[in-house]
């Protein structure tokens, strides 16, 4: 990584569908909704688009093999360069890195990046598809469930830093409350810490209200080169840093208390964006929060606070919308819903809207000029980071 990035790339439009447990729309229709809204908001037509990047997580949710091929036309990719990025849970942000490179390399001037997930077709429950993410021979025969590994990680994290469940539940309370102002949100709610602690246990220490729901939904953003961006908008949101990192597949061979993958992905993005103190230099954060503790875990990984200090910041209200370091003002996956890839896509949309001051009721109090979107996934091993600036 030696070269200066000369060709600047901006995000110029964003769109998303409602996030719901079940949508009537087919995958194709959902994708069209999101792409259409994003194009409209950028004031572009399909003729202006040079390339399309799709992003979606396991085929076993939608129940369509090679599902990237299933939405080409709807994504605007008919007779155009089209590719699907797929890195599990991190897809929503890692696909933006792909889309960014399509424009930054000079191949395209305008690139649509659409992420979608339709989890509802999978029966008896979308959770079942997650069984197939595990090692085929040494884990699946144990009947592994996705929640297991998060419970293991959460427990280790709590044990290492002596964190109480009450502190972690605060994240669920904050995010679900934030989601009340999000028009697409699936599970907005005013809840208390007690509600979280009294909800049914899924896999101790994870309880129902610690988890984000399975969802159907799609979101899209438009990337444009500097020339195009300056022509169509006064407030392009520039992509200034990208980072992506993956740890070893063997999650059971490493200490889970600290997310080194988030640390290294963050470092890459920070160095590209010339950010030395992310806590001070970045104004608004969308951090991947499929489980409430993950938000805290990743805040530490992204160097926003020291190891084990994130619960304290949450307790003090620093991460609230009106706080000094707003985290997940959208409501995050806990509140808005978690259609895996589109969950990350939603975070990029939110940063775009926050930096353009278009977030309405969700607008953070401080004057936000730099924002960070983060997604995490796979076997608790990968992270993608995107830093944007107005």
């Amino acid at each position, binding site marked *: 990584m030696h070269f200066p990035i000369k060709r600047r790339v901006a995000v110029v439009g964003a769109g998303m569908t409602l996030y719901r447990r079940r949508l009537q729309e087919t995958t194709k229709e959902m994708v*069209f909704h999101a792409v259409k809204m994003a194009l409209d908001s950028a004031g572009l037509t399909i003729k202006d688009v040079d390339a399309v990047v799709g992003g979606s997580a396991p085929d076993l949710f939608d*129940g369509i093999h090679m599902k990237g091929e299933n939405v080409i036309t709807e994504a605007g990719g008919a007779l155009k360069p089209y590719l699907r990025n797929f890195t599990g849970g991190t897809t929503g942000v890692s696909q933006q890195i792909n889309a960014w490179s399509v424009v930054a390399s000079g191949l395209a001037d305008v690139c649509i990046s659409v992420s979608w997930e339709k989890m509802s*077709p*999978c*029966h008896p429950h979308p959770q079942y598809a997650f069984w197939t993410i595990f090692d*085929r021979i040494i884990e699946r025969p144990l009947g592994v469930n996705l929640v297991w590994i998060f419970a293991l990680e959460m427990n280790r994290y709590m044990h290492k830093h002596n964190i109480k469940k009450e502190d972690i539940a605060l994240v669920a309370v904050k995010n679900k409350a934030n989601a009340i102002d999000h028009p697409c949100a699936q599970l907005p709610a005013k809840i208390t810490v007690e509600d979280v602690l009294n909800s049914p246990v899924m896999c101790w220490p994870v309880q129902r209200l610690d988890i984000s729901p399975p969802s159907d939904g799609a979101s899209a953003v438009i990337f444009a080169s500097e020339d195009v961006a300056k022509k169509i908008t006064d407030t392009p949101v520039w992509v200034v840093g990208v980072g992506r990192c993956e740890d070893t597949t063997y999650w059971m061979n490493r200490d889970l208390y600290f997310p080194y993958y988030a640390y290294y992905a963050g470092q890459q993005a920070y160095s590209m964006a010339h950010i030395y103190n992310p806590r001070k230099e970045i104004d608004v954060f969308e951090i991947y929060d499929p489980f409430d503790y993950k938000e805290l875990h990743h805040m530490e990984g992204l160097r926003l606070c020291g190891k084990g200090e994130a619960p304290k910041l949450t307790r003090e209200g620093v991460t609230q919308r009106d706080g000094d370091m707003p985290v997940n003002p959208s409501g995050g996956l806990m509140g808005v819903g978690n259609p895996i890839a589109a969950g990350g896509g939603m975070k990029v949309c939110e940063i775009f809207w926050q930096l353009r001051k278009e977030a309405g009721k969700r607008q953070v109090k401080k004057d936000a000029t730099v924002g960070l979107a983060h997604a995490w996934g796979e076997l608790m091993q990968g992270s993608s980071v995107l830093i944007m600036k107005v």
Partner: protein
Amino acid sequence: MSLDKISNPETIKHWTDVIPPEYVYTVGVAGERFFREIKENGRIMGTKCSKCGCIYLPPRIYCEKCFDYIDEWVDVGLKGCVYAYTVTYLDVDGSPLDKPIIFAVIKFDDVCGGLIHRLGEVEPEKVCIGMVVEAVFKDKAERIGSINDIKYFKPVG
């Protein structure tokens, strides 16, 4: 650096398993109307873009050329012509079929798209590109709102 390989066939190990989820797909907003028309009225309907006039079959909620929403529905009729066909002699697992299946891409006049379906009431040797065919529906009572409510397409005349 050395690369160990399996040299004793008795040590080759495999782990056999299945991926078992079941899937229930909604047919979508456009599909809902399309299949209800087939089920209740025995009509094949497409959607039309009021801007460019393009008619889509299977119907969609948008025009791919104008990239905008569309909601005008038009009856495309039951007759189309064979655009491409193939006579399949093997089943999915590779075993021979009792009776070969003729698949065809059927195009309708002035319609973008068409339907992929089976042909019936015709010998494989008689099928040709350009042949005019017509949809044969199941009895109304048997229809469930699926592409299979059309039994097959048969040659006309």
